[in-house]
């Protein structure tokens, strides 16, 4: 079955994205190293957020397992980095996360709402603590060195993962597979009664999103050069994409991209200069967005385009 056949197209959106990517691709040619490194981190957050939104956006299953998939990629890179070529390490990082997500998905996607959220968070923490225990008890040393890679290479690899993630998110959204995911998010019981195998659809989407997180982790490890379970499985990697996506709005593809880009940029700027104000500002903005802008910044833009902030439906 041609599950990924495109239902419709938007040429302007495509053209604009293409231009931005060309710009990003040529950037290292005329800017100094430090901004390139910052930009790599920003793109990393976008990758995690966009791939998080592939699954959690349409289905509304809030996953807090991003750190698990990212961290697995980081560790794959640390373990295999010396033995294998970089592209292979990154693909393996993605694939291992993909397989891990398939297993977790089949186990947990029967759970809904709060139970799913807590379980996915628990999985990340379990892996982190297990690795910490393993390294402390079994290996005697915590943490590993990772083979360093030139910062421009890291940048380009991250950019390539970003392009693939974005393209995948776009194809999923525009395909019948995306419609199935959306139906599940709207009304899961009804979705199964119109012939959608919800378990399979959810698990595949979950695994697809994990692939990009794992790949991003694998390349990011080479920039950090030293990693341990606390760095690789930092719970912030689970929480940030959720907040960034909610801030941007998950209704449209550019929502998570925009949310992640803006917040990651703030982080880069503020965390070095005013580390305390960063989290303060972040928290305040999140409260405002959740209270007043349930559809994120993108929802706000769409509302304005539709003509003012007036209410459209008397009985929502």
């Amino acid at each position, binding site marked *: 079955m041609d599950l990924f056949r495109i239902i419709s197209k938007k040429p302007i959106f495509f053209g604009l994205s293409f231009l931005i990517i060309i710009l990003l691709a040529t950037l290292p040619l005329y800017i100094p190293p430090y901004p390139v490194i910052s930009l790599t981190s920003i793109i990393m957050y976008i990758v995690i957020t966009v791939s998080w939104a592939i699954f959690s956006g349409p289905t509304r299953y809030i996953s807090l397992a991003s750190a698990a998939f990212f961290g697995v990629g980081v560790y794959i890179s640390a373990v295999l980095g010396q033995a294998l070529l970089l592209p292979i390490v990154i693909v393996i990082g993605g694939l291992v996360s993909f397989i891990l997500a398939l297993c977790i998905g089949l186990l947990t996607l029967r759970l809904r709402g709060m139970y799913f959220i807590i379980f996915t968070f628990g999985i990340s923490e379990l892996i982190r603590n297990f690795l910490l225990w393993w390294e402390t008890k079994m290996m005697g040393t915590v943490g590993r060195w990772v083979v360093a890679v030139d910062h421009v290479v890291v940048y380009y690899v991250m950019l390539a993962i970003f392009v693939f993630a974005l393209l995948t998110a776009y194809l999923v959204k525009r395909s019948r597979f995306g419609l199935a995911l959306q139906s599940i998010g709207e009304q899961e019981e*009804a979705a*199964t009664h119109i*012939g959608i195998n919800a378990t399979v659809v959810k698990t595949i989407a979950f695994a697809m999103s994990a692939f990009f997180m794992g790949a991003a982790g694998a390349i990011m490890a080479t920039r950090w050069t030293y990693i341990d379970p606390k760095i690789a499985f930092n719970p912030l990697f689970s929480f940030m994409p959720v907040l960034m996506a909610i801030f941007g709005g998950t209704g449209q593809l550019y929502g998570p991209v925009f949310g992640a880009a803006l917040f990651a940029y703030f982080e880069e700027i503020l965390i070095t200069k005013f580390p305390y104000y960063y989290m303060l500002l972040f928290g305040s903005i999140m409260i405002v967005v959740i209270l007043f802008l349930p559809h994120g910044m993108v929802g706000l833009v769409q509302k304005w385009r539709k003509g003012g902030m007036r209410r459209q439906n008397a009985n929502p």
Partner: protein
Amino acid sequence: MRILEGEKVTKHFGGLAAVNNVDFAIDQGEVVGLIGPNGAGKTTLFNLISGSLPTTAGEIRYKGKKITGLKPHQICKKGVARTFQSAKLFAGMTVFENALAASLFGTKRAISVPDAEREAKELLEFVELSTVGAMLAKDLPIAHRKRLEVARALATKPDLLMSDEVMAGLNPAELAHAMELITKTRNKGITVFMIEHVMKAIMNICDRIIVLHHGNKIAEGTPEEIATSRTVVEVYLGE
């Protein structure tokens, strides 16, 4: 020909027998009503047939083949569609997308997107919702929601439609329209199994009626037989 039959179908919720040893059979082309007081187990029986709930005991066969134990999506693809009592539409999607999703995924054989789009359009015309195709399902008034439930179920190309109170909460004009819709559905060759409380509709449309009470089948027969049955009048219809 028997399209659907149940043998000693039973569902326990803890100590409560919501459906108890119910035998039933529906022939191809029939319109069969399922009535009974609130809590009689009507929707539970639908949930057992459509696979939403596992049966405690008994067997349900569709076109001679056992379907108990199958998942809802598998039962749907075999040709059994259902609507939901409390309209469970894809609220944030358009009316058209609601029907489109059902056309795309509801059949065993894969269907191309243009074909599914054409089918979805036809079905919206069939239930007279084509003018509101671009509206979000959540913005529809109740009568339209019920019709969209029917359209979405029919989009899966069923041979058997199970409709769960599609006439509840409608005004007389809307009711007449809903009754006409059921008749039109039957004229397409689709067998209809319907839960309904609106007696006028049940008595007019159904070939046969099954009555449930406290999970037990207490009567079965033509509308005339049911209307004059002593037991049914006592437990449900009232004097």
